[in-house]
């Protein structure tokens, strides 16, 4: 069963990892360590587990592969290009549509009149008056 001394011991254990214990705290820790086996074991476990954790840290061996820089640079270039296109795409699209419309308008205005093929050509076709007629062209009742 843990008493208030054990709780204080546990709290101090965590605190003195990062700072020096005061003489008073040191005296308390020594007294409690001698009196409580469970806390002494916990202290040992805390120290060992933290040491193991620190030893398991990656050091300089955790550097990236030699191609890392090149890969990042290439991806950065692609990303920047893509972002640039995405940023300008509404303007580019608008410009393309406007240019298309302008081209269509200019084409329509400058299109030459075809006297035989288009409707306009047919309307303008001059029909010479003549008395000669083809009987087949008349309705049946008039023939």
């Amino acid at each position, binding site marked *: 069963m843990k008493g208030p001394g054990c709780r204080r011991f*546990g*709290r101090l254990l*965590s605190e003195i*990892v*990062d700072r020096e214990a005061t003489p008073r705290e040191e005296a308390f820790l020594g007294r409690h360590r001698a009196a409580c086996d469970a806390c002494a074991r*916990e202290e040992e*476990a*805390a120290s*060992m*587990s*933290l040491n*193991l*954790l*620190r*030893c*398991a*840290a*990656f*050091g*300089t061996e*955790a*550097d*990236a*592969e030699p191609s*890392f*820089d090149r*890969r*990042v*640079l290439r*991806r*950065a*270039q692609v*990303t*920047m290009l893509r*972002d640039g296109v995405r940023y300008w795409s509404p303007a580019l699209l608008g410009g393309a549509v406007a240019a298309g419309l302008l081209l269509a308008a200019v084409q329509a205005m400058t299109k030459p009149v075809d006297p035989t093929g288009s409707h306009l050509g047919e309307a303008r076709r001059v029909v010479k008056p003549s008395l000669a007629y083809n009987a087949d062209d008349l309705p049946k009742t008039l023939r």
Partner: protein
Amino acid sequence: MLDAARFSSAAVDPAALERQWVARVRKGDEAALGLLIERHRMRLVRTAANLLRDRHEAEDVSQEAFLKAFREIAKLRDDRAFSGYLYRICVRLCMDRLRLKRAELVEFDRAEPCQGPAVENRVVIERLLDQLPADLRTTLVLREMEQLSYDEVAAVMQVPVGTVRSRLHTARERFRHLWLEANKD
């Protein structure tokens, strides 16, 4: 050209040099981009490897962090803040991956219970760290493995120093209990 740029600015202090590079990257200078990558690569990959315990995944995350930082470099108000900003992105990405991994691990453990403690220290440590929540694990690794100060951990994780202190206390206790349990088996 890369070497010439480095040589010419050898006398300048590293922070000032980095500010110059950041300013050049903003203008689209690719050589400066390369210099920034070279400068921060090792620290980033090492931190990610310590957090994720996987070097290949660490490289992926570092790459992502670089790309994200470069993409948003224009939004950075202070050129001096780049290294901290990059580091924060990297830690955040690692935490996201840890959360994802932990969720997968919980699912897996439900289906198939643990086989017992591993022999090698690194493997044991990895297994123990896997059982800590992402926040506690990150705090513990940044403090104990990366040896950052409380203030630095707080800045990287964007939490108050008091939160770092309490998380660290909890993380150390949990880690100790996990280690004792693993040794019992």
